[in-house]
């Protein structure tokens, strides 16, 4: 069965520091991959999605970027973190437009 791994689980970073969150997938190939952010008490906001290697679409203008260097690897990055980047970051995969998501366990990012 397909599984999705995210790390780290928690992260505390100072303002202005870089960020790299990694998401890897097992048990499936060529998935659609997504990065979502969930602010406290709010719903999930789609940040980026990817339908294949090197293909990244951004949903909202922000201080973050994403990359997909391999089929089963999705990376969320920032060169300089802002306080507003704090939140719960979730990676998700879908096998296609007729399937739901499988989510990773999430990364709690606190920018101080």
């Amino acid at each position, binding site marked *: 069965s397909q599984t999705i791994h995210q790390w780290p689980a928690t992260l505390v970073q100072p303002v202005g520091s870089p960020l790299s969150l990694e998401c890897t997938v097992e048990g499936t190939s060529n998935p659609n991959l997504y990065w979502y952010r969930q602010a406290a008490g709010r*719903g*999930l906001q*789609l940040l980026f999605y990817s339908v294949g290697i090197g293909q990244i679409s951004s949903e909202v203008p922000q201080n973050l970027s994403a990359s997909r260097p391999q089929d089963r690897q999705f990376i969320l990055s920032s060169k300089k973190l802002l306080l507003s980047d704090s939140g719960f970051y*979730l990676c998700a995969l879908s096998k296609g*437009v*007729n399937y*739901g998501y499988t*989510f*990773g*366990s999430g990364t709690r990012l606190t920018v101080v």
Partner: protein
Amino acid sequence: EDQVTQSPEALRLQEGESSSLNCSYTVSGLRGLFWYRQDPGKGPEFLFTLYSAGEEKEKERLKATLTKKESFLHITAPKPEDSATYLCAVREGSSNTGKLIFGQGTTLQVKP
């Protein structure tokens, strides 16, 4: 603009007290409505997918129904372990990326 609204934001029930959660949506051609359960600090866990009005699905004490404008998640005789945030999401018909639009969620607390 595609939109998903969940109500109530929070719900407190006594163990055994049945109730329903609402998910209202506006989307250009529904291509699936999804229900997820999210425990604190964890990624959402898939519950149901509904595709057409009149469709119903059940799992233990949960039953999801769908109309042309909304979906209900009925909880029958809930137990404390049903306490969680329940998320509703829709996929719009023209999407070729599989991305989901999420509501804000309903946080359910079941007291013994």
